[in-house]
Every structure is written in structure tokens, then in C-alpha cells.
């Protein structure tokens, strides 16, 4: 939005004035350059990911083919990539099916959504419709702190508390009513992580578990759901609520049948944002869910997400040009495209709810 105010008096032919105008034009160009950097970043992400991912599938980067005269060799077929069920590009007998890690990512995402969406929505409803100002002022900072804690801390929390205490507690309850079947999952427990867990529950789950990842990622995405949903609920005009009360509606009815439907596009936008964050989440899932590219829905098993794979390869500092290095970008590109589509959807929904009550 530009301010349409003429700068300086409109006297032409004045040298110093010309110089001032020239300076203004220069400044404008520099500032536009700053703004352009943000667009260049996006373009660079696209180009670099595509360019490097190409070498995974075609044996050479796009830039090398175009400018270096390298020839195209099919190394990994798209069919194998998208339909194979074993992911081990770095093994002696490599396998290039990306499905297990995509499934790992989606399981974590859906599971985290099952935690954060109901809890976040309920929190938003409570804050928006029920809480007194005092309670709101106390509860909202807590949620902000929850959102501000680095993901590595959630990862640590998963390793040192959630998995050994909560997940193994659940494992005991679910799996061990008779005490016999549990012995069969003892392969999950290569070592006891936390003596506290054993003392409390008399059981140990492995160091990594799907459920642990779901719980921490779910917890860390609650604030995204609750704060954006609450904004959407606050934007619902009071006239609608009062109209419903005038017709004899109870508070419950107003909350569920007036506020929720009226704010639905903003609420959905918050869900998509939370799911998109869960897809891209790295440190918490890496430390909580592990590095085993399994196709499984067993909540106590170790799995691997796309981001965890990226970390596992980067940890090993693989050399440029190796298959592992190239696979980083194939997986990274897929991850980027997944979150990009979620973000575009989120953007559209958000725009809709903002336009509804202006």
C-alpha cells in the first residue's frame, strides 16, 4: 500500500531536487531487491531440490545435463520409488521404495492430528466461549510457551519421559492384562531406558515408538490449532450468539451449533497448519519414533519418517554424488511438495474466514 503523497514541492528543474528524486528511486530499487530475495528463496528451493533430486532418478543433475553434457541414465525408476515397499537406498542391496517413510510420516501426522485437533479445538472453545478474562490471561501464555519450546526439547522429553513412562505404561495396560502376550513383544526392549519406568510400570518399551512420536508431535501442535481456531471463533459476531440465546439456546448449543459452524473455515485452516507442521516436524519424531523404515501401524514399534531419514543421512555426512546424498533431495522434494500443497490449502481457507466477517 503506497502512500500517495507527493514528495517535496513540485518545482522542477532544481538540481538538488533532482538528486533527491534520483536517490529515492535508488532506495526504492534496493528495497524492491530485498523483497525480491524472498521470492528468489522460493524459486531457489524449487530449482535446487529438483536439480539434485534429478540425479537420484537420472544419474545426473539437470544442470549437469544442460550445461555439462552429462547423459541421462535411469538409476531409480519412478515406479520403484512410488510403489516399492522397502526403503534402504544406503544398503549394500539397495531398495528405493519411498512408501515406508511416507507412511511413517503420514501415520505420525494423522496420529498427532488425533491428539491436537480435539484438544486444540476444545481449548479454543473454552478460551473463546467459557473462560473468564483472568483464566484466559493465564492459560494463553501457557500455550504460547508450549509453542515456543524448541523441538529438540520435545525430542528429549520423548526419550526421557514420554516413551519410557507414558508409552510403556499404556503398553502394560493394553498388552499385558494376563501377562503372557507381553513377553512376545520383548524384542521392543533392547535396553531399559529409564529405571523410573521399570519401577513404576514393571515394563519397558523400546527406546523408540510410533506412539511416543504421536504424543509429542500432537502436544507441540496444540497451540497452532487452539490459537488460530480461537481467533476464528472470536471473529464470530456476538449478534449471532445473542440471536441464538434469544431463541432459548443453551450455552452448549451456542458453542456447538452457532460458533463452531460459523468459524469453520478458520478452524479448518488451523487443522491444516497443524498437520503441515507435523509433516515437516523433524527433531521430535527423530528422537521419539526412530530410524526403522517399517510399514506398520503398531503403536509400540519403531518407524521412520521422511524427516528422520534426512537426519539419519545428514548425520553420516555422506559424500556428494553418492546415492544417499542424492536421495536426500528426492525425499526433501517430496516433503516440500507435501507441505506446499497443505500451505496453499491453508492459505485459501484462511482468506475465506477472514473475508466472511469483515
Amino acid at each position: 500500500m503506497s502512500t500517495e503523497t507527493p514528495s517535496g514541492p513540485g518545482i522542477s528543474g532544481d538540481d538538488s531536487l533532482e538528486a533527491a528524486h534520483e536517490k529515492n528511486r535508488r532506495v526504492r530499487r534496493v528495497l524492491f531487491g530485498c523483497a525480491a530475495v524472498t521470492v528468489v528463496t522460493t524459486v531457489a528451493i524449487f530449482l535446487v531440490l529438483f536439480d539434485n533430486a534429478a540425479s537420484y532418478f537420472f544419474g545426473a543433475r539437470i544442470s549437469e545435463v544442460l550445461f555439462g553434457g552429462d547423459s541421462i541414465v535411469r538409476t531409480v525408476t519412478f515406479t520403484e520409488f512410488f510403489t516399492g515397499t522397502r526403503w534402504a537406498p544406503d544398503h549394500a542391496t539397495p531398495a528405493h521404495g519411498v512408501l515406508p517413510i511416507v507412511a511413517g510420516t503420514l501415520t505420525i501426522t494423522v496420529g498427532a492430528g488425533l491428539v491436537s485437533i480435539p484438544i486444540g479445538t476444545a481449548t479454543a472453545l473454552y478460551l473463546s466461549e467459557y473462560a473468564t478474562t483472568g483464566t484466559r490471561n493465564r492459560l494463553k501464555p501457557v500455550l504460547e510457551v508450549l509453542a515456543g519450546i524448541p523441538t529438540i526439547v520435545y525430542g528429549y522429553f520423548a526419550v526421557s519421559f514420554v516413551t519410557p513412562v507414558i508409552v510403556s505404561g499404556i503398553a502394560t495396560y493394553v498388552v499385558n492384562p494376563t501377562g503372557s502376550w507381553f513377553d512376545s513383544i520383548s524384542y521392543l526392549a533392547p535396553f531399559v531406558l529409564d529405571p523410573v519406568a521399570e519401577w513404576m510400570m514393571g515394563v519397558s518399551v523400546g527406546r523408540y515408538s510410533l506412539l511416543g512420536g504421536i504424543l509429542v508431535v500432537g502436544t507441540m501442535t496444540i497451540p497452532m490449532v487452539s490459537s488460530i481456531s480461537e481467533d476464528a471463533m472470536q471473529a464470530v459476531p456476538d449478534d449471532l450468539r445473542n440471536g441464538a440465546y434469544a431463541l432459548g439456546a443453551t450455552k452448549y448449543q451456542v458453542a456447538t451449533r452457532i460458533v463452531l459452524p460459523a468459524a469453520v473455515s478458520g478452524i479448518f485452516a488451523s487443522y491444516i497448519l497443524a498437520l503441515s507442521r507435523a509433516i515437516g516436524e523433524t527433531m521430535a519424531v527423530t528422537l521419539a519414533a526412530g530410524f526403522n523404515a517399517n510399514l506398520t501401524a503398531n503403536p509400540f514399534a519403531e518407524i521412520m519418517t521422511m524427516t528422520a531419514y534426512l537426519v539419519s543421512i545428514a548425520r553420516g555426512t555422506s559424500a556428494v554424488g553418492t546415492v544417499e546424498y542424492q536421495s536426500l533431495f528426492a525425499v526433501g522434494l517430496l516433503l516440500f511438495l507435501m507441505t506446499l500443497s497443505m500451505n496453499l490449502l491453508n492459505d485459501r481457507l484462511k482468506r475465506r474466514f477472514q473475508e466472511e466477517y469483515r
Partner: protein
Amino acid sequence: MSTKRETDFLEDVDLSREKLLNRVFYGTLVVASLFGLVMLLLLIADVVWESYQAFVTFDIDLGNYLTATSSSRAERAGFGASILASLWLMALTAVLAFFIAVGCAIYLVEYAPENRVTRLIEANLANLAGVPSIVYGLLVLALIVNDAGLGSVILAGAIALALLIVPIIIVASIESIRAVPSSVRDGSYAMGATKWQTIRQVVLPKAMPGILTGTILALARAIGETAPLIMVGTMLHATRYPSGPLSSFSAMPTQIYNWTYQADRMFNGLAALGIVVLLLFLVAMYALAGYLRKRYETDGGSISNV
């Protein structure tokens, strides 16, 4: 109509189900709202407990911990090199991100015409804010670390973090610049100032507290980021003190990751202590941001600092 019939009518209406439903719903909401609070308390209690264990069980020497470099032997390992690396990262990230972000914000608020290019830039900002941080790490790994041959150095990590937080600073700066009343600008123009003079000497000084607050909050986000640094190729053991922007490094979060990843319980204790240090840094930054906001809110109306 007799009053008796009215009472009969009311007696027919059974509101107990509605009342129960309302109470159950309210209770559910309260319990759900407490979930986040409980998890936060558990997390803090866990970190504090593990740090306490680190001192009691493993007898960690705090002085050595805060000054030494990391080591593969847990008894000798310290956090000092990581703290210094994080400080380097923050300084470089701040310099790299601040000017570009503020420049972009000024352009969007003061100069940008309402056209397709502007809309593209604005839509792209929303998109950038949603890109997973690990992807910025991949970008810098390919482009800066390997293609440009810079290597896995602090500067490369700072570039990744700067790309990550530029959108955040832009959004905060836009808000802050928009909040400067247009009467102030008009006053400056009326005095014969040019557009750039007005922005530099009138608008920016008034918007600066908000911009700085946003920058500090964004840096607080950057200091806790682990994934982009790992992608850039941070060595996961901070075995040396970094000597400058071009030395390899392991920052606080990557060092914490490395210690957490180890099976040895003593390393986990070291990680817990590291988390305490990291969180103290965060608290200090949030406090500084809060202080800035408070301080400049109180004399908000005056333009004495112009």
C-alpha cells in the same frame, strides 16, 4: 388463562438432560484445556529432574560443563564450545536476516503498488513461513555448502537460519510500520521531506521497537532450531571452540541432540543440563522482547525521539 395451566406446561419441559449435557461439555472443555498445561509441567519437571540427576548421580562439575568442549567421554564433556557457536550463529543470522527483512517490509508497506508482483510477494511470504525448517537446511547444503564450496561452517548455518526467520521478521516489521499513523508521515512531507527521508527519519524510528521485538523473537526461534543445522552438516560433537564464522561447529541444539541420541545415561544428563542452558537463553530473549514492548508502549503517543 389460569396460572395453573402455565405451571403444568412448564412441568412438562424436562431440562435436566440439557443441563447435564451443558455440564458434561463444560467439564470436557476444561479437562482438554488443561492437557497442554499438564504436558508443559511434565516437560519442565522432567528436564529439571534429569538435570538434578546429572549433578547427584554423575557428579557433573558445572564450571567445567559451562567452559569445556564436548568429548566422547561423558565425564569430560562440556557445553562451552556449543554456547559460543550458538552466539556466533545468532549474531551472523541477525545481521543477514535483519536488513533484508526490514527492507522488504518497508517496500511492501510504503512503496509497493497494488499489482500482481506485490500479491505474488505477499502470497509467497505466507508460503515461506510454512516451509519445514529442514528444507532450508537442504537448500543451503546443496547451494552453499557443496556447490559454492563453503563447507559446513558457521556462516552456512547462519544463512540457513536467516532464510528461515526472514519471513517472521518481515511480518512483525510490516505490522510495526503500518502502526505508525499516517499523520506523522504527512507532517514530515509537509515540512518538505522526501519519501526516503520520511521513512528513514520519521517512520523507522517509531517502528523500530516493534521491529526489534519481532527480530528478537525470531532469533529466539532460530537459536532453538536443530534440523537445518544438522542438514547443513554440523559436526555433532563440539570438540573444538569455533574461531570465527568459517570454522566448523556444533551449536547448542545439535549438541543436545547428540547427547540425547547416546544410549549412555550420563550423556542424557548432559543433554538435560544443555536444555536448561538453552531455555535460559530463550527466557532471557523473551524477557528482553517483552521489556522492549512494554517500554515503548508507555510513551507510544509521543514523537519525541524523531
